[in-house]
């Protein structure tokens, strides 16, 4: 009788294991993503070198490096390509984006992250121009069958005269109007910006964050980037439960 019980329990465990294994095998638990990080110095980050197929080499720190570690936790082959260019305005970005999207290096891309506008504001460009140009970039990305993710502009305590609030309002409304996922970097980071710029990062100012700040930016991006559909969400919830 006792051996029968043990037999039944063992059999149940075996069946359950096979069942769960099958679910894990055929569900999207493991996936990889290719992401392009497009922007200015807030994307380029610090001490980068060599622009190749993977964008800029890792360098000391920048948000794409941190973001890649996050997305790799979901899929070992995920990559985040750094296509940030320091000092670039959105009108310059509009022209450069074509080159990036048409590159043979970027034939299969899942998302393009768009963070630009701080240099426009520095040059006193009207926020309406930022809105227009980001809208153009969104359309260009979508025309390639890629999903864009838009971000609000991060704080700048060195140049508080910037029309940052107005620009970010425009960006939020643009995301809503075009149905684009928004990573609200400003709202997420502003309360802690002092800590993200003290001690100073490699740029030595309060516009560019230090390594903690770039890490925080990566977190905001990661939380915003849509996750691939999961076949058994209840299972993922179960597995994710600590």
């Amino acid at each position, binding site marked *: 009788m006792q051996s029968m019980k043990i037999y039944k329990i063992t059999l149940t465990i075996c069946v359950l294991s096979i069942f769960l294994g099958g679910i894990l095998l055929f569900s999207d638990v493991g996936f990889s993503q290719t992401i392009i990080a497009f922007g200015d110095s807030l994307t380029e980050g610090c001490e980068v070198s060599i622009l190749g197929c993977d964008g800029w080499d890792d360098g000391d720190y920048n948000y794409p490096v941190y973001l890649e570690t996050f997305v790799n936790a979901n899929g070992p082959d995920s990559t985040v390509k750094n296509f940030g260019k320091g000092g670039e305005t959105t009108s310059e970005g509009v022209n450069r984006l074509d080159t990036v999207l048409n590159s043979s290096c970027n034939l299969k891309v899942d998302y393009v992250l768009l963070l630009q506008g701080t*240099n426009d504001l*520095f040059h006193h460009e009207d926020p309406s121009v930022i809105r227009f140009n980001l809208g153009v970039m969104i359309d260009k990305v979508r025309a390639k069958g890629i999903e864009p993710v838009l971000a609000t502009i991060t704080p700048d305590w060195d140049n508080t005269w910037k029309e940052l609030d107005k620009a970010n309002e425009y960006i939020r409304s643009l995301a809503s109007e075009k149905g684009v996922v928004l990573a609200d970097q400003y709202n997420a980071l502003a309360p802690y910006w002092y800590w993200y710029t003290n001690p100073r990062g490699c740029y030595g100012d309060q516009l560019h964050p230090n390594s903690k700040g770039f890490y925080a930016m990566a977190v905001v991006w990661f939380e915003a980037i849509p996750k691939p559909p999961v076949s058994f969400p209840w299972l993922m919830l179960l597995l994710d439960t600590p």
Partner: protein
Amino acid sequence: MRYCGLNILLSSFFHKIYSRHGSFLFCTIVLMCLILNLLLSQVLHAQKAESIKQEQDTKLVWSAKNYGQGEQIYYSSFTKNKWTTPVQLSHSADLVFQPASSSGTDGKVWVVWSRQDKNGSFIQFTVYSASGWLQPRQINTGIDNNKAVAIIVDHDNTPWIAWTAIDDIYPEIFWSRWNGQGWDLPVRAHDKNKVPDIQPALALDESGNINLSWQTYLDGKYVIVSQVWKGQQWQTVSNESEKIIRKKLIRGYKGSFLVPDFVEDSRKASLFIKRTDGAGSLPLSLF
């Protein structure tokens, strides 16, 4: 060919210099405060040789934050192999920015810039003559959001200005000129459109014609539009080589004739300007 109104935007360059060599605390503080929007005027550009020669004194205007005075507009000229002591042209409690200057053969120096308050952005100007600097005055454009003003003085010593203003949704390019008593009513430099028109620049060609260039969005990208004032009207410039040259005049162009060199002295901020033709660099003490 004479080019005037060449702006050099330096600040993003400077913070990189300091972040890497930054042990000069005072300079760092000053530079963080500066919006080093420098303007060079009176630069000769020999088209074939691509060399640069000074015709007269080099004029420099910039906006900078001085202690206790907020951000103001300053002027200096390179005279007798040295920079003159900077003159503060604005005394505004509001934000002033994007200065530009030009001068003719009559000894007058015209300086324009933008002033921003809660009601919008406006263009101010002043002129240096035998009686000294005129108290800054506002140009009544009748349009909101006036920014990015450029200026050039033609061979008749008439100043022309071009700037961006928002008459509808996006910035558009407007121009005006001094009629001896005041500024003519602003005129739109292009057909009304639904795209941004930005970064106007003015120049004189070898024939003395006024050239007006700017960037506009066309067919998925930003392109340079250039036109020349001939026969009392603007004519579009189609010559590609001329367009390439005018590209250099666009505000923010990276291949400027003058570039910041370096700054030294922990107690006094000095800006060194290096000419790209290898003429060396000379200091300008800011304060």
